[in-house]
């Protein structure tokens, strides 16, 4: 409680380091909340299984490394595809049946799925986590003067920025994205234009899930690869999405990076609060701007 009492203001270079680290964590938030926002924006489903799918991505990388010998780089492609297809099957056989119902059933359904997926993995792999090493070319790091930046972290920032921007571009600036956005407004009309809306929805869900899996692969060398790795993260990501504005692609990306930085700074000045700061911000945002910072409708 007396955390404020022993704050020592760190020297400016150290602060720089902390900002950079915050940005790296923000990159994970951004990728995960982006997937959630895409799925919510187009399917109106709040995907509670997102954390489990992130875990699946990491596990997929671990499994194909240990059983087939496929390393990190191919995993970046293979894991999202495998997990994305799994997601599409879920959508096709389960989630599809709740579209007509209240949105909350989607939340409950995916919550149940998350429990099943995590439970099965815990059954077979325990909860102690599995080792996954940093790929050879990215080990080591650079001494930036103000901090030691591991190469792998630098790669995470670059990679996730590219993926986030790419997704935003496809949805907001291309014809395909326009169809997607139109389909959420008026599926019947888009169908009338000869576009197979159910298939598009399936593919969209698969894409959102693949994004989560990709984040999982990126995370595997940094965090513990364990069945529960996504279960706490998902709640933070929910808060990020609420702050950014549900369904807003830009809000998810900007919100993710910004909150990563804010959280990083909290870790320096008042570490005890670093896991609650995002929820406090969320409460404030809801009071001031209930639709979220980038939300389109109230």
């Amino acid at each position, binding site marked *: 409680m007396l955390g404020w009492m022993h704050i020592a203001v*760190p020297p400016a270079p*150290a602060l720089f380091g902390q900002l950079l680290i915050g940005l790296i964590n923000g990159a994970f938030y951004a990728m995960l909340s982006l997937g959630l926002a895409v799925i919510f924006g187009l399917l109106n489903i709040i995907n509670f299984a997102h954390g489990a799918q992130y875990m699946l991505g990491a596990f997929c990388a671990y499994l194909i490394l240990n059983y087939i010998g496929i390393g990190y780089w191919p995993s970046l492609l293979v894991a999202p595809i495998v997990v994305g297809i799994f997601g599409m099957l879920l959508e096709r056989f389960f989630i599809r049946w709740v579209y007509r119902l209240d949105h909350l059933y989607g939340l409950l359904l995916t919550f149940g799925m998350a429990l099943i997926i995590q439970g099965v993995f815990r059954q077979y792999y325990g*909860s102690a986590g599995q080792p996954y090493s940093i790929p050879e070319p990215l080990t080591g790091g650079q001494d930036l003067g103000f901090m*030691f930046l591991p190469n792998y972290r630098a790669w995470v920032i670059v990679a996730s920025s590219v993926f986030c921007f790419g997704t935003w571009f496809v949805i907001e600036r291309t014809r395909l994205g326009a169809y997607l956005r139109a389909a959420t407004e008026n599926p019947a009309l888009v169908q009338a234009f000869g576009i197979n809306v159910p298939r598009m929805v399936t593919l969209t869900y698969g894409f959102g899930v693949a994004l989560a899996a990709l984040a999982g692969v990126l995370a595997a060398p940094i965090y*513990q690869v364990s069945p529960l790795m996504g279960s706490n993260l998902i709640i933070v990501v929910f808060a990020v999405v609420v702050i950014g504005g549900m369904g807003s692609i830009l809000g998810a990306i900007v919100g993710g990076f910004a909150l990563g930085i804010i959280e990083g700074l909290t870790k320096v000045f008042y570490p005890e609060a*670093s896991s609650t700061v995002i929820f406090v911000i969320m409460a404030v945002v809801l009071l001031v701007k209930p639709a979220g910072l980038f939300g389109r409708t109230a």
Partner: protein
Amino acid sequence: MKRRSLLAAGFAAALAFAATAQGAQAANDKVVIGVMNDMSSVYSYLGGMGSVVAARMAVKDFGGKVLGKPIEVIYADHQNKPDVGAAIAQKWFDQDGVDAIVDLPTSSVAIAVQQVAKQRGKVTLISNGGSSELTGKYCSPTGVHWTYDTYALAHVTGKAIVQQGGKKWFFITADYAFGHQLQDDTAAVVKASGGTVVGSVNVPLNNADFSSFLLQAQQSKAQVIGLANAGGDTVNSIKQAAEFGIVKGGQRLAGLLVFIADVNALGLQTAQGLMLTEAYYWDQNAQTRAFAKRFEAEFNGKVPTSGQAGVYGAVLDYLKAMQAAKTEDGVKVVTEMRKMPINDFMTHNGHIRIDGRVIRDMYLFQVKSPQESKYPYDYYKQLAVIPGDQAFRPLSESECPLVKH
């Protein structure tokens, strides 16, 4: 409408029957040992079904019978919920004729179950539960804390590392009672042994990213970074310390609550150089290896954790004491246990104190590098043996009401 109400009432009644139908009072024609632990969640890797296997091995080695009665081992998953654990314990004692409950990881559950057992004069043999409060504030005349406790791990690691020259410490501490306790216990011994604490940072539980805190530790110029956390938090902090070149930069990591399964999860490449304390490591000597070999044969080739090995030792000792005391009465059996010195494959001249604490030697290990490791699970090299009377909290500092000051 009447039918509907009757149906509903009948259904509710039937359901309740199915739910909790009270069995007949168990006849006292056998001795029952209940293994209660986490079988499906975060701590399952420490005990889980492996503890059941260990308990059954002990029963088999004892001969399967005590006081002329057959011995039965049953088990349950407390799901890390104290109310679930307490309810199972009450049912076990009152209806199923259970005489002792063993293992009990997760301190909230262990304390709750020990309270239930205490009220009934039944025995708890705690192996994987770590809280030193089990023999402190919440101690019980029928409770035995067998394998380790958090105080000993912190104390031994702190003392041994200072003696080896690691004098300046920085703590990364999980921000809850457990983490603070670990830090305080370690800091006390570090200072008493001539070291200093240059800083610490409190980290919320289940925080996945430790880089910010590791950076603070790095800038503190400490020689040793003490990890006053557990489980996933410890694994993540060690993993990221390797990434940020902490160990390569000359700082040492001290795990205050790390087990062999955590090292396995990290891989030697990442975990190498880490110093930690355990009560048992499978590859210490011929006896420990012999036990591990038997255990592996029974349990899918997995080496026993110290907690599982402790379950074996505790059950065997309990049965021997029961034989000697010629009664199943919990208080009398535990009194008998206190009289007998403990000697088994992992314990040498151990004994049980009045507060229930088993005094045993503890071992400081260092994790090998991948080059040093020659065969599967060849993970540790032993650096020091700390005699039991120096490892555990002295009775003079105990809050246990059974200890007369």
